[in-house]
């Protein structure tokens, strides 16, 4: 469970202070499917990054699964990211030197898993994401949809409790985007919490809960 209390994130631009997140209170239960929407610059990415422990809030407290994680050490936060959170980005963020299989394997390497077991799990995941025949391809040899599928496979291989996707369809054609969303929804079906940042209303409406952000504040919180 994700519990944010009065979370504030301030960026300083010269003299100006920008409240990217302005005293956000938010609770997300395990297994929820949440869409974060709002205009550009409203704080969607910042909120996702704070939830994913990539960004530190300047104020407020964050409890994850009942434990306060705001004051954990850098290494402890990294461990939580490794074990509980899977990130999916708009620009895929695949390592260009590594093959699809190697990109998917990265989180397993970071967690120190033995090579034999890694291979097994990577193969299983490749099959599950219908990427087996692309295993040895580099990102540059893959289509956008395939790249995002590799990225999603990488985000799920550690079986995280939450998947955080920041505009995962932003760089994709509408049709491919729908397929990618469907893939994420499949993961949600298996019990994973799914939080998607999008400004595509149609995609946002597929979620079971819509958060509307504006100027770092949650304007509406709709459950459908």
């Amino acid at each position: 469970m994700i519990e944010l209390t009065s979370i504030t994130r301030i960026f300083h631009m010269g003299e100006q202070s920008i409240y990217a997140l302005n005293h956000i209170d938010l609770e997300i239960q395990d297994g929820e499917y949440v869409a974060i929407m709002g205009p550009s610059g409203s704080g969607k990415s910042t909120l996702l990054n704070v939830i994913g422990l990539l960004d530190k809030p300047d104020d407020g407290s964050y409890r994850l699964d009942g434990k306060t994680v705001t004051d954990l050490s850098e290494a402890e936060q990294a461990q939580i990211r490794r074990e509980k959170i899977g990130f999916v980005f708009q620009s895929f963020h695949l390592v260009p030197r590594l093959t699809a299989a190697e990109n998917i394997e990265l989180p397993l390497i970071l967690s120190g898993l033995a090579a034999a077991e890694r291979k097994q799990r990577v193969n299983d995941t490749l099959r599950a994401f219908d990427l087996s025949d692309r295993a040895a391809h580099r990102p540059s040899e893959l289509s956008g949809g395939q790249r995002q599928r590799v990225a999603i496979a990488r985000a799920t291989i550690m079986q995280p409790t939450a998947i955080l996707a920041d505009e995962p369809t932003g760089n994709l054609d509408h049709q491919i985007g729908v397929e990618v969303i469907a893939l994420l929804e499949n993961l949600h079906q298996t019990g994973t919490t799914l939080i998607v940042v999008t400004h595509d209303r149609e995609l946002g409406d597929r979620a079971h809960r819509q958060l509307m952000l504006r100027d770092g504040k949650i304007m509406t919180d709709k459950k459908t």
Partner: protein
Amino acid sequence: MTLADTFFLSFKTVVSYRLRSVLIILAMTLGVAAVVVLTALGDGARKYVVNQFSSIGTNLLVVMPGRAETTGAFPGAVLGQTPRDLTLKDAQLLGRLPQVRRYAPLNVGEAELSASNRLREVTVLGSNAELIPIRHMKLAQGGFLKHGADYSAQIVLGSQLASEFFPLTSAIGQRIRLNERRFLVSGVLAPQGKTMGHNTDEIVIIPVEQAQSLFNTTSLFRILVEAKSHDAIEPAKEAILETLKQSHDGEEDITVITQDAILATFDRILHALTLAVAGIAAISLIVAGILVMNVMLVAVNQRTSEIGLLKAIGAPAADIRFLFFAEAMWLSTAGAAFGFLLGQLGSLMLRLVYPDLPAWAPAWASIAGITVALLTGILASILPANKAARLDAVQALSKK
């Protein structure tokens, strides 16, 4: 992340940035190779000189007239005195010392050697039979003053002179003239080539009394003394000084130098030279280290978004630091290894081109070269690795 995975992952990175890696490794390689080859050259020169110097004798002491300037405690006391000459009597006194195995008086001069229409200027050594063993010379044929007949007009010819003057017959027993004095060839030296700048193939040796009368002198140029053992060198020096002081009415007017001391001096000087050369070569390694640092900094910049991704999927700062560190380790280790091999190859070439030069890089130099390469690689990676580890994940991800 396990250590093995860290090194494997960074190895892949090194391989995929091929050109960049090759250039850094090349810089490291040249640096290490320079250390190895230059020290091989320096140490080869040292060994060459030491060998040359050792080959002129064993436990050798050289007695010469005159006091070395360095001792002058009372300059006034020495003033106005010409040093007394060394004489054959002095040499015989030294021969009786218990620390002395053998001695050879020595006169050196130039004279005209002539026989059957041939004539040439040669260097003449006047000495006794012991000169040959003391100076480690070898006779190819015949002998020299074998039965102690010091006054007989015997002559030993250098190998080249023998074949020049008697190309068709054996030189032994032939008559030959030195400045119109007649000599009988009793021996021929084995060819030896140059040692310490003297070509022993083009000298002649005659009895010292003959030489003194030939050059119209009663004094000696040097007395060569061989001590009984290495440990006897210093006592022999003391004894020689004492003996000749007594024989010269209490005046210390001779100088004794030991082969050992000269050898040690040469050894020291050339060793220092080798060290200095190694140090200069090591500077190129530092330069290579700076290159590594620069390239690693560029790499951090290039791979910023990748570093952000690694952080997002849960890599702690320590892992990222170690990844870059391992990358630098690969580069400098490869550079050190190739440099060592190239250096050995270079030394081998030196030895092939100059067979007289024992151009082997000393172990300390190879070890130092490799260590400095690894060390600079490690040091050079600290700054970039820390920079990578400290990157803000969100900003890193948004780059590019």
